[in-house]
């Protein structure tokens, strides 16, 4: 285990250092990220102002604001974006340089993403957390969040991170079969945003879409941990929710392995 971490930790270290190198680019990205969070909240304020009822689908305005803040928090804790790496590695043939290393490609990529994830945790997760704590105290809405569940929330988010990585990694293998890189990224983003609850709470969905969401892993990435911290999943439901996440991690982990070995066996590697 220690050897494993030393070996693969090197990939995380490298990508973290690259992120530090490009900190200006990344800080702009962070800025954009918070800006869009602000816009989303303003949008909800407008929606509630025009709503005849104070409560929409079980959320008051203040609860909806917290929902968005917490979803933002889970989004940055679980941040993993292997699709863009796979697309780049494949498109210009750089993947051969990863394949000559005595290390699994999927795990190399996981750790490369972990380096970026660390950066996102420093510059998005921490500020978002402070923002949530501040808003919570300032609005005297201390009971909107289940602070006691915080450790469980962290654990659930960690499971979300694995689900996010595996699901995206599996999806990214489509690149090898279709040669389409840019379109894949857009498609994946859209699917993830909708079904992870990043756009709107999943209980806003009509019945059939809800059912579909239940068959997809994405709820386990952001929605499940968010609902834990929001105190909306408690007791035996909470255990069930974590159980669902664990099952997804195991299932997707195996699936990723299968999909990857199939891709590798018929891989074309571009360029001399």
């Amino acid at each position, binding site marked *: 285990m220690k050897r494993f971490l030393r070996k693969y930790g090197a*990939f995380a270290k490298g990508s973290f250092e690259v992120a530090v190198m490009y900190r200006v680019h990344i800080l702009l990205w962070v800025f954009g990220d918070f800006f869009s969070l602000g816009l989303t909240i303003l949008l909800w304020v407008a929606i509630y102002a025009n709503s005849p009822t104070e409560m929409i689908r079980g959320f008051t305005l203040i609860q909806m604001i917290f929902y968005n803040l917490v979803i933002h928090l889970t989004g940055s804790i679980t941040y993993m974006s292997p699709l863009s790496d796979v697309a780049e590695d494949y498109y210009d043939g750089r993947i051969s340089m990863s394949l000559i290393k005595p290390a699994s490609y999927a795990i190399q990529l996981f750790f490369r993403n972990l380096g970026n994830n660390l950066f996102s945790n420093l510059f998005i997760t921490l500020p978002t957390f402070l923002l949530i704590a501040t808003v919570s105290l300032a609005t005297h809405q201390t009971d909107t969040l289940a602070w006691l569940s915080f450790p469980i929330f962290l654990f659930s988010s960690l499971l979300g991170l694995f689900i996010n990585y595996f699901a995206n990694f599996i999806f990214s293998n489509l690149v090898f079969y279709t040669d389409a890189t840019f379109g894949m990224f857009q498609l994946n983003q859209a699917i993830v945003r909708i079904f992870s609850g990043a756009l709107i709470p999943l209980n806003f969905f009509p019945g059939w879409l809800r059912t579909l969401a239940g068959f997809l892993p994405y709820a386990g990435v952001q929605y499940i941990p968010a609902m834990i911290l929001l105190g909306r999943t408690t007791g035996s439901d909470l255990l069930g929710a974590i159980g669902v996440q664990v099952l997804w991690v195991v299932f997707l982990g195996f699936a990723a392995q299968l999909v990857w070995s199939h891709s590798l066996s018929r891989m074309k590697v571009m360029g001399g």
Partner: protein
Amino acid sequence: MIEVKNLTKEFVKYEKEKGLKGLLKGFFNAKKVIKKAVDNISFTINEGEMVGYIGANGAGKSTTIKMLTGILTPTSGEVRIDGIIPYQNRVENAKRIGVVFGQRTQLWWDLPLSESFLILKEIYEMDDAFYEEQMSFFNRILNLDEFIKSPVRTLSLGQRMRADIAASLLHNPKVLYLDEPTIGLDVNAKQRMRDAIKMMNQKYNTTVILTTHDLDDIAELCNRILIIDNGKVIYDGSLHEIKEKYGTTKRIEFEVRDELNAESLNLASVFNVHPDELEITREDKKLSIVFPKLKISVAQMTEEILRRFDVQDISIFDADIERIVARIYDEGKVTL
């Protein structure tokens, strides 16, 4: 030991018709064509051998290297490297090999060079003492210290290649694959690369497989060459042997004043040899004749031409290796 048996790799390509119409048509039903990039090749390479793998562009060199390194899975046939099948046991094989692809780098583009080496140290699980020893060895022969603190993207091509070769050799691999490692390098940088490869081979008995278009690389490093053409190995043997056989020609260039056409020379019948044994070209005032030196002496040939033309200048050449290989590519086969 590297054993390659009936190795074949086919690529499926989709041929598209020209123009917008073709593009649209191709979107739905492009014509499938199968390209045999490597076609049923077999060879064995022993430990410590340095083998030159040469062939024209598109001959299948890189595809072979990719299968030997476990990046590509063959369509059929087999590769075993000390018993390990690289594309089935990629990670195990990767511990024992070093690879340089001339057009790529395994270094971290944005980070100082030293970081790439530190990362490699962890990936190959090297201990501190071994790492230090290797680093100082490569520093000595490749002068990495000059630029070890610079980000890789700021290095010159020659510096980057030096760094890349050090990176590929750092963990002391048993087999080193070099795919056009000297491409684009100047004479000095090329020499440095060759020295490093040679020293590694002497010090650790590293097996080396080298593809290149620079036959000086081959002449200096390899005692054995494999020539591949259109996916097939057309020659496997020593450089010496091929020089003996194909080096049995001489070339004489005459600068002549007359306006005679080369075909009317009829030299084959004059010297009583088969017309294929002579290669006569005429370009402006330059008449160039390649002939078998064992059948016709330089004196005889010169005398004959001097007798028939008004000659201003004469130069005599041995057959050079580029010429030999070009001729082999042309013929697509080697007859020894």
